[in-house]
Structure formats: structure tokens, C-alpha cells
């Protein structure tokens, strides 16, 4: 294969691809958060991939892992800022093992009283009611490999749930995080409702 053709192939999004879970119950994207029971619903389009992921039974065999992680950043006087949380899914969708990760950033999510709306934008770790969202999607199937990292989506994150038990540092490695995302990127729209159990935290030094 010649170089130009190779690069065009590598750069082309898979517009015909559709990620759909079995037995979807929603026919349109949610307009409200779907509640505190662990779930992940992603509907819309991401980098050419049609998404109709409706996972409400996280004990299903198709779900290998569904977990959240908080990331804390060094703050003033030995304190920490709650700068990042991740929602990670590893599940078999359409017969293919797929990994999807949502990563949200703010200067300090703990500084905002919930429920709260955050404007999504391009700035990393923005202050106040703003957030940065990156969506990562990876899988490998007969047509090749997908490694998408779509950052700086615009839109809104409505954060409605973020609880857990602080340890002796005041950091939380448990509880739940839940909310609704209505996002846009390059003319595509993506709606995400999630409630994820938190399994760990990490201190980014």
C-alpha cells in the first residue's frame, strides 16, 4: 500500500460503525439523569461511530468492568484538589471487547456544591462551573483497530451525585458519581447518563 493511501485509511473514521447493546429500551437520548442505580447510557455519535449503548444491568456477563476513579492534585498547605474523575467501561458490545473511558477535569470538583452544571470546554482543569471532558474508545475487530481520544467537547455536564467516605487525608475511594452529559464535537452530538461506583483514587504528584 502506498503511503498516501495508508495514511488516508488510518485517518478515516468508521462512519458505518454502530455500537449498540442488546435490547435497548430507550428510543431517544435521555433528557434527564437516569438516577442513582449504576448505569451507563451513551447515545449519539462519536468520531463517526453511532453509539446506542444502554447498560443498566452492570452484573451482566457482557460487562467485564465498570468503575470510577477520582484523581487528586496537590493543593495548598498539604491539601488536595479534586481535579479529575474517570468513568471506565470494559464490555462486550456487538460481539467485540470494547473499552470506553470518560475523563472529566475541573480545578477542584469539591469546591462546587451539587447538583451543579458545568460548561464543557477546551481548557484543562478549569475553575468554577466549567469542566473538560475527554472520551476515549478502544477496540479491535476484523476491520482493524480503533483508538479514539476525543477531547475538549463542548456542552454541559450536570453533576448530580458524588458521594463517598473520606479517608484520613479527606480523599474518597468509594461512593458513586452520577450525572448527565450533553456534548457536541465537530457537528456530532453525544448524550451520556451515568452513575458509576468509585473503586479507587489516585494522587497525581
Amino acid at each position, binding site marked *: *500500500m*502506498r*503511503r*498516501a493511501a*495508508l*495514511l*488516508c485509511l*488510518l*485517518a478515516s473514521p468508521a462512519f458505518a460503525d454502530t455500537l449498540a447493546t442488546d435490547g435497548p429500551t430507550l428510543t431517544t437520548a435521555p433528557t434527564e439523569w437516569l438516577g442513582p442505580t449504576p448505569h451507563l447510557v451513551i447515545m449519539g455519535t462519536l*468520531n463517526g461511530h453511532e453509539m446506542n449503548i444502554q447498560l443498566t444491568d452492570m452484573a451482566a456477563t457482557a460487562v*467485564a*468492568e465498570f468503575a470510577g476513579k477520582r484523581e487528586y492534585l496537590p493543593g495548598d498547605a498539604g491539601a488536595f484538589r479534586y481535579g479529575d474523575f474517570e468513568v471506565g467501561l*470494559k464490555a462486550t458490545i456487538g460481539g467485540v*471487547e470494547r*473499552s470506553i473511558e470518560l475523563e472529566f477535569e475541573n480545578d477542584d470538583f469539591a469546591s462546587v456544591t451539587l447538583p451543579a452544571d458545568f460548561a464543557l470546554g*477546551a481548557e484543562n482543569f478549569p475553575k468554577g462551573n466549567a469542566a473538560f471532558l475527554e472520551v476515549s474508545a*478502544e*477496540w*479491535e475487530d*476484523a476491520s*482493524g*483497530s480503533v*483508538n*479514539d*481520544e*476525543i*477531547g*475538549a467537547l463542548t456542552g454541559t455536564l450536570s453533576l448530580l451525585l458524588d458521594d463517598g467516605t473520606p479517608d484520613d487525608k479527606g480523599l474518597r475511594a468509594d461512593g458513586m458519581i452520577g450525572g448527565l452529559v450533553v456534548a457536541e464535537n*465537530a457537528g456530532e452530538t453525544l448524550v451520556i447518563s451515568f452513575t458509576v461506583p468509585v473503586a479507587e483514587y489516585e494522587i497525581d504528584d
Partner: protein
Amino acid sequence: MKSTIEAVTALLLCALPLAAEPLAIAVPATVETAGTGGDADDPAIWVNPADPAESLILGTDKQGGLFVFGLDGAERAFLPDGKLNNVDIRPFVLNGKPVSLAGASKRDDDTLVFYVIDAAGVRHASPFAHPAIPVDLPGVDDIYGFAMAQDASGTYALVNFKSGHVLQYRITEAAGQISLTLARHWIVGSQPEGMVADDSAGHIYVGEEDIGIWRFPLDPTLAAQPFAVDTIPSPCLPRDDVEGLAIHDSPKGRYLVASAQGIHRAAIYRLDGDAAPPCVALVEIPAGPVDGVTETDGLAVTSAALPGHPEGVLVMMDDQNAGYTTNFKVIDWAAIAASLP
């Protein structure tokens, strides 16, 4: 933003006329190692001089330690030694006996750790861990890439840091104890990782992940004057990252192999002394007897003849493997070489 830039770059590249370009080669892997539950990164190949069939593949898991695999891919051992990033191997003499010495960069505590390898297996060297950041060298931070080198003046550990620093330590041994002495240091402009020494040519190659590949003299008495081998974007590195680097050295030809992670390919540069190395091929590892290779971090090659592989093997980390694991794929070098221009 990154995806937008990549899309624009790709469109521009697609619009370019065809020029002298690397050959596209596709060679499936023949064997894969067992999956690592953590996050595999960098392999190294130990060739058993007495019995090549009993050679080993070492593989770092940057969440937990060092895997040891046989050439069949089966796990022989796991040493839970921490967040090991890169690993490399050189022949060494310990207590007057020839062995192999493997070293690795450890991210938990910015140390270099060493292993002794012989027919008995892989074991900790003594001392095992060595601080990698000198107390009198400010600004060095966050250990990352690692390689080893060897020339007439000695054996070296090369370690780089996310701060851009590259440190060259001389490794010496007395009464079975190894020690490190800083021989030289320099700095590159941004985060490096992959490194390899071309011992016979006296070169060190350093990958700057978002920038390209540099060459430096191996001799620590010389200034670390950089020579640009390739720069992103280029036909072989159209996008970042540059990751693992390795040297295939045989009478048939000498090559630098680089992981072009952003396009899931191994870029092959032909080496000829001090001349600028042209990139001659991009190697894809598609699905075959085992699944394909994607998003490779580290890689390693050997030109030593191994069972079924008369010209050696290329080993590449694979980021997407069944069961949400990562692992290492083994590719026959002769199958690659047969297509090289």
C-alpha cells in the same frame, strides 16, 4: 483539539503527491505472550547462548513488575518489583563469570533496578535498586525510559526522565556487587522515552515522544551533540508518539526499528555508519495466527537465530489483546527482511 489537528494533518497528507516513501509491509505475528493483567510496556530478549530454544522474553508491566516469558509465549515467572517502565539487557561479567545483566527504570521511586540472567533464570542483582537521580543535579524529575549500552570503555545504563534529562551511568562490578557512576548527562527539549544503543556503531538513539528521533555519540567523553534522524510529521512518523527503539544488526543489514505508535506500525530505518538513516519501511502487524498489534509502546529485536526464526525476531508490545489485557507479540524477522527494499 488533538483529533482536529490530526484530522487536518491527515487530510493534508492525503492531498500530497506520492513521493519517495517507505514501503508498506504487513507481517502477522506468529506467537503472543500470555496477557498481562496490568499494563505491559517494554520487552527485551535474552538469547540463551547454550540453548537458543530456551531463550526468554522479558516484559515490563508498569503497574507491577517484570514478566518472564518463554519463546512460546508462556509465562515462566513474574517478579512483582514495582512499576517497571523500560527494560534492556547486555552481556556482563559477575564474579568472573559471564552472565547477562538486565536493567529497568522503576517509576515508584525513581530508581534503576538490575537482574542477573543465566541458565538458572532471572534473579535480582546485588544491590538490586540504585537511585537514578543524582542529588547534585537539579531539575531531573520523573524517571521514564531506559536502555543499556556497551563499548570498549565499559557497560552503561541510559535513563531518561519526563523532565527531558538523559543520564548515562557507567556500570561496574566488584566482588559480585554492581555500582553506578554518572558518566554524562544532557537534556532534550521535551518528554523522551524510547532509547537504544547501537553498540558497534557507537551511537545512542533517543526518541522524543512528540518530536522525533535523535542520535548522540555513545562515548561519554564526547559532547552529546544531537543529530536529527526523523521528525514528526514525516512519512514514517506522521503523528506522535515515537515509542520503543531497537537495533537489528546482521551481516545482511543494520536497521533501527522504531515504534510509530500513532499509526500502529514499526518504522524501519537503514543504518550505514554515520550517514543519515533513511526510513525504508513501515511494518504493520495484522491479525494472523494471533491478533494484530496496536498502539505499541516498547519493542525489541534480536538478530540471533532462534528456533523457527533464522534471522531473529521482533517483539512488540500490543495494547489491545483479548480479555482487556496487554501483551507482547513475536514476529519473524526473516519475514520482514524478505520484503525490505
